């Protein structure tokens, strides 16, 4: 009968902590770049210019239908094999792959939010002689933000969970360091059980933060 030993893992808390910092760093950069890129793609998807619309739609469809692991492989191994002399660190390859992947999803969420605002609302705002910037600032942004807030929160939690695949290209983030602890202690199972709860808790903290911000700052959509 197998006896579980969780206490051995807690001797390596410093390794888990340093992995957590890398995961945190990676996730924050991905959230930032993914969201910025997502906003641009969403605007491109709403464009009336056919070429812009076609290219941005293709971007979204391709990235939503290809595993992020392959995107990571293509960026980390593929690009450096094509361009001689160009190498990319595991960290930045992960940031780029995860951001690009996330931006496709965020673009769809943001586009949905902008589409969700009723035309009448914007017309009503213009008829009150608000300027274009004012309409954008007072009508579109608060309303769209409210519409997309939950989906955006889920997407950002998904980034934290998704950052675990960077361990496959040997970036020393949380999952990779857990593998390291597993091989030092031969307690892989216990290590990953602990890790599972760390990820669940990290996701829970972020989604609670999102709910809190929603409660405190976002006006209820009275529709």
């Amino acid at each position, binding site marked *: 009968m197998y006896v579980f030993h969780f206490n051995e893992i807690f001797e390596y808390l410093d390794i888990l902590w340093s992995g957590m910092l890398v995961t945190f760093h990676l996730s924050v950069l991905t959230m930032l770049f993914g969201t910025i890129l997502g906003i641009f793609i969403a605007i491109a998807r709403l464009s009336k210019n056919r070429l812009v619309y076609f290219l941005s739609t293709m971007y979204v469809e391709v990235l939503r239908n290809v*595993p992020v*692991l*392959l995107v990571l492989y*293509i960026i980390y191994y593929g690009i450096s094999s094509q361009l001689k002399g160009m190498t990319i660190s595991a960290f930045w390859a992960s940031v780029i792959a995860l951001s690009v992947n996330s931006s496709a999803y965020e673009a769809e969420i943001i586009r949905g939010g902008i589409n969700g605002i009723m035309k009448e609302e914007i017309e009503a705002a213009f008829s009150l002689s608000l300027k274009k910037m004012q309409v954008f600032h007072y009508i579109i942004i608060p309303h769209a933000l409210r519409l997309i807030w939950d989906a955006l929160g889920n997407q950002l939690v998904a980034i934290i*969970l998704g950052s675990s695949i960077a361990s*496959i290209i040997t970036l020393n983030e949380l999952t990779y360091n857990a593998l390291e602890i597993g091989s030092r202690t031969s307690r892989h*199972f216990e290590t990953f059980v602990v890790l*599972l709860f760390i*990820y669940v808790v990290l996701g829970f903290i972020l989604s609670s933060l999102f709910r809190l911000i929603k409660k405190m700052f976002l006006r209820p959509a009275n529709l």
Partner: protein
Amino acid sequence: MLNFNQFILLLKGARLTLEISILAMLAGSIIGIFIGFLRASKNPVIRNIFRIYVDIFRGSPLIIQLFIIYYGLPIIFDLDVSAFFTAFIAITLYTSGYMAEVFKASIEAVSITQWESAYSLGLTYPVIALKIILPQALKIAVPPSIGVLILVIKDSSLASVIGFTELTRMSNIVRAQTFTTFDVYAMAALLYFIICYSISLLGSYLEKRIGSSELHKINY
């Protein structure tokens, strides 16, 4: 460039990706139906216990779940199983978390009067659930399930880390044979795209056929 044999190898990988995804989807849906009913229960204790189940499987990376099953099956159940079986169990559990939420939403979308009238006819809970509510919920669950299937196909690529030779691991093998990194991965990405995009087209077709009358009720 890839030659014909290497392309055939990738196609074999794609077949295994499809096999494991569809099997895990079927098994995950069966578990998901049960948990969906429990999640839609009126009893808050039952509802919240199974919420934890859903939160764990949806709230943690699949790669961690794969590792837990991979290292856990041999030590807990004393099982020495193939990579396919390990990946199947892990992806099934992962899928069941998503499908439970899909079925919960679908079950709740079935009008409450269906329950009331069935109870007033003297039917018991299992009969109502399986014969009256489930058929209606299944229809509502089709479009979101297509989304979950696509997610599962893409995430099954992670099974490559525990040594199951699906499309992603197969492309690693072909890459090691040929040293044509970019071409192999681009071809694998194209295969994934073809599979997932055709399924999503099928999904939007089904969504139109089932009709928005049923779907506006769902809050998924």
